[in-house]
């Protein structure tokens, strides 16, 4: 990992690379195989927030655009399209992934959770409640992704250190600069999740 970090000089990217589901595998595959798939649409069954959807799209259409344009799940945001900003973060089988790097066919048979499925205004997830309590959002455009990333972290580790939080969330860009509040909200959410168990 040290070598990887050094080459990339970017710990956040290294975090993603260490996660074989998110970038290394998929980027490599999209480079090598994208042309083979072109224009060959087929029916696929996706489970999003517990609801089964049949879609007829190209297998390589990024999950991001299936969610946004085909299923109107617009809490998922397009920010960069190249796994640099994290605005499109969703959970695939409980793991935080960049939906701009996941092909539709990769999500087939899996459980996709978006910000809308994490919690609702009437039934907030602990992370959302903490985000509201700390009033994290300014423009708010990155916050769906931040919240999904934080929720995935806390599902694995309910007592994250500052370093754990930095490692988990540094791939999520916030142009408004709400990082101090994001850190505080993650800690509050962790506390509230620990209280529940």
């Amino acid at each position, binding site marked *: 990992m040290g070598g990887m970090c050094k080459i990339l000089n970017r710990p956040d990217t290294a975090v993603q690379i260490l996660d074989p589901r998110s970038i290394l595998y998929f980027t490599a595959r999209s480079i090598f195989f994208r042309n083979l798939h072109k224009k060959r649409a087929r029916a696929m069954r996706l489970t999003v927030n517990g609801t089964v959807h049949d879609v007829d799209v190209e297998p390589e259409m990024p999950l991001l655009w299936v969610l946004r344009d085909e299923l109107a799940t617009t809490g998922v945001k397009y920010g960069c399209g190249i796994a640099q900003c994290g605005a499109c973060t969703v959970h695939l089988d409980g793991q935080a992934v960049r939906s701009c790097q996941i092909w539709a066919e990769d999500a087939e048979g899996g459980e996709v959770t978006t*910000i809308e499925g994490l919690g609702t205004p009437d039934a907030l997830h602990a992370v959302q409640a903490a985000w509201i309590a700390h009033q994290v*959002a300014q423009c708010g455009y990155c916050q769906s992704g931040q919240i999904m990333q934080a929720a995935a972290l806390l599902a694995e580790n309910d007592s994250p250190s500052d370093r754990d939080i930095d490692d988990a969330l540094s791939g999520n860009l916030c142009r408004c600069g709400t990082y101090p509040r*994001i850190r505080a909200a993650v800690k509050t959410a962790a506390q509230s999740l620990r209280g529940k168990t």
Partner: protein
Amino acid sequence: MSRLRKIARRSFLFGSVAIAGGVAFGAYMVRKPHDNPLMDGLAAEEATFNPWVKISGDTITLITPHTDLGQGAASMQAALIAEEMDLEFGQFDTEFGAPSAAYFNTAIAQDGAPFLTTDDSLTANLARGAMGSLIKLLGMQVTGGSSSVPDSFDKLRQAGAIARETLKRAAAQQSGIAVSALKTQNGAVILPDGTRLAYTDLAALAATIEPVQDVTLRDPSEWRLIGKPMQRLDIVAKSTGTLPYGIDLKLDGMAHAAVKLNPRRAPMNGFDGSVAKDMRGVLRILPVTNGVAVIADNTWRAFQAVDAVDCDWGEASYPAEMEAHWAGVEASFSPDRLDKEWRHDGDVPAVLAAGEAIEAEYRAPYLAHQPLEPLSAVVRVTEEKVEVWVAHQIPRFVQSQVARITGHTDDQVILHNQYAGGSFGHRLEFENVKLAAEIANQMRGTPVKLTFSREQDFAQDFGRHISAARGHGVVRNGKVEALDLHIASTSASRSQMGRIGQSLPGPDAQIPAGAWNAPYDVPNFRVSAYAVPELAPVSSWRSVGASSAGFYIESFLDELIHAAGADPMAERLRLCNYDLARKVLEAVAELSDWGRAQGPNEGRGVALVESFGVPVAEVVDVTATEDGIRIDKVYVAAEVGKVVDPVNFENHVQGAVVWALGHAMNCELTYSDGMAEQRNFDSHTGMRLYQCPEILVRGLENGPKVRGIGEPPVPPAAAALANAIFAATGQRLREMPFDKFVDFV
């Protein structure tokens, strides 16, 4: 009137300075209020008392015409009205409202007047007044220049008070009880016996009453909302993915468009869409200004197809390579390019000639805005009207720009303003709206959503100005004796105005902003601005001129202070001649415990810049580690007259510091072959979470005017960081981004 319009148009300037001389309007024209746009389409049972309040039998609607770009403008505006109306959050809806002259900005012009904040002379006040009158006559509805709070603070409380008093009069008519015996609370008029008459129940009667204009505003001691933490109106929606941004909208039958535009911002010679036209989902391929559009049934398909269009681009009108841009800047330090000598205290040439001058040169690069929500716009054109859904800072200009393309009148263009996923000045421009209108006009009846890919957004971004500064100074007996700063810059104001067919009369006050008005009594002090002829097109980038000029003045002053062997804080305090600015310095010295002992490899820097009428002082602490510079902590004190919402204030100041430090650390837009080389966040990143220091914030309320905080914390940050790095390492950084010279961890 036509002559008036002409004068007004010629002399109008957004975002920076002044009006030409000789503007004389009849007092009547200036005093006459604009029509209330809420009267249009008002139902019989609905009441409106002014352009900001509308009440029906079941809903109270507050109009918040300043665009919410993420800065919390909607909540702030609603709170000011609700304060005086005795409404609680949750008892009203908000709307951005239709574009209207009634929402002209009362503050932006005054702050742009080329006079010091401290200048209370007749000339200064006349100029401010004349500019304010001009903006009113033009009906300039604009969000920008950190003016939303100053524009709204009195006006919206007044609007709330008028509504309250009119509702009381209605209650008096209905109950037969004198107005003086009535109170208001919690969305209702309260009769002496405790009976509550809800505002909504009084709406129909209130609609028949002429609004009461003679109202008294609440004493600050009675404020329930102002100055206390509020829960932003949008916070739940933004934390649950349920707030629809412009890019999220979907209308029935809507088509999705993507564009590929000449990255040299010049015309397209031709294109080959033969591959794209057969791609799945593609509906149309249309040439548009400077490029081509693909319209498809899905955004991603439109992106894929437009990528497959082969385009032949024309040449850029500006230099192809970066070296030539810098050469253009350097060549402008000449008498014939002098825009204005903004300040000359003492006798700078004589002191420089007599003493041993210290010299330094600084640079600030082009930068992209790139809010995280990419530019988009939804437009539907029919014979009778054009509807536009977009987040924009100058709504009435959207109408005129679109009308020009579709052949409608301005009034036929209906703008539905949207919550924006950030702006930082990006949404003052019109390219997304104009292109969407061009496309939709060729597909009349079909709503079209144009979405910029991040790469297109970067390539077409009208970035921050490019500039350089040359400083000459003299120190004597441990004190700064002379400071001579020459700044050469391209002009965001001229570039921006040029794109809407306007020209800037007089010098551009943004070039020296933050430097010429530095609140220091250096005995010999001169600031001169040089106008660099336009290179790449540029625009207002959060804090505009002060983002670079503030870096120059506070870096060079720091160099002189170190050369004099003085303490950076003590010498600034000694030189500071403006009471409000001295107090922010004192506050930040206390907050940061300035005198405390430093560990090895630690360093701290301070900077003070006044922009948009707000003096802000910042201290940055760094440690030089083996792997690079770590920013440990930042302390900020800002003078705003009144902090409207302490939570949002702190968030906003912290965000502005992150913005400023992030770009100073690692961002620049460079050109090669006439094209921006940075096309996504991998090469123009800004600060990430792991780099973010703790940021302590203190808002001061000593000043007589209530000011906005969106931009003023940006200018001091880069200088404070460079000054801290010097203190820690002895290395003076004079050019942004700093990661050209040091690593950051």
